[in-house]
């Protein structure tokens, strides 16, 4: 049993071996880390802010530090999870930056509000060693809503 456990712990390959019946697996494969969606969310928010900054250069000074904060959150979350940060460009934000600057800011505020909720829930559910990071991310997202007013 120890041997099988050690082999399975080798990681990524374990999933593809599961179907071939070589090993009797009595442990379910570990699921994705609960923080993995937060990495994607952070990268999406950063991409949305960069797109808006590109479309509205007058807002770039306000939007760029916030985009950088999301990028830093993604990097820190990936470090905590123990996965490399996806190096491919983040998925394009679902909506292209609005043509009107006020509408663009309103859409960004709404995205930050929703993201703040995600981080708040993740912080409440987190083990001790992750609570402070998630708390900072929730607080950062709340301040982004304010800074985008």
């Amino acid at each position, binding site marked *: 049993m120890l041997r099988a456990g050690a082999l399975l712990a080798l990681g990524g390959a374990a999933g593809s071996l599961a179907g071939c019946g070589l090993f009797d697996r009595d442990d379910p494969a570990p699921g994705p880390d609960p923080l993995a969606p937060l990495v994607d969310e952070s990268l999406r928010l950063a991409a949305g802010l960069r797109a808006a900054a590109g479309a509205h250069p007058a807002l770039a000074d306000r939007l760029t530090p916030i985009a950088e904060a999301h990028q830093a959150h993604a990097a820190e979350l990936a470090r905590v999870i123990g996965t490399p940060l996806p190096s491919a460009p983040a998925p394009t934000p679902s909506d292209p930056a609005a043509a009107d600057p006020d509408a663009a800011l309103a859409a960004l505020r709404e995205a930050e509000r929703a993201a703040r909720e995600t981080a708040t829930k993740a912080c409440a559910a987190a083990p001790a060693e992750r*609570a*402070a990071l998630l708390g900072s991310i929730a607080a950062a997202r709340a301040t982004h809503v304010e800074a985008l007013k």
Partner: protein
Amino acid sequence: MTQPTAPAGPTAALADALTAEYAAIWAYGPIGVRLSGAARAAARDAEAAHRRRRDALVLRLSTTGGTVPADRAGYALPFPVTDRASALRLAVEVEDRAAAFWRAALPHTTGADRDQALAALVEYALRATRWRRTAGITPLTVPFPGRPA
């Protein structure tokens, strides 16, 4: 109120947060007298928020058998407050530092205590952002509110 050191447990973490609230309440005295109009009202509002948290912490610590640390007659300010600009800078500093103490409490708390610690971290990070806006300090946000520099 300096940087929080790692508290020994939940009660110590909340006692540390209480000392931060004492210092914040004290600091809003010299801050308030240098401000006028809307900024002065915001300082009163902020001071009231710290008083509410102080009262809740005293109650929480005394009803659960914890030691309630004593308030001091005065606290050393990180720099002299001589005018509006230095008062606003101190207000930013006070909120940032208070946020750090609540962030430090997150790993030591669960359930309702953690929710309250997170609410405090988020609220003080928001107040710091609003003070930066009033003071004309940019960027308005920091990537990881409450995280030791």
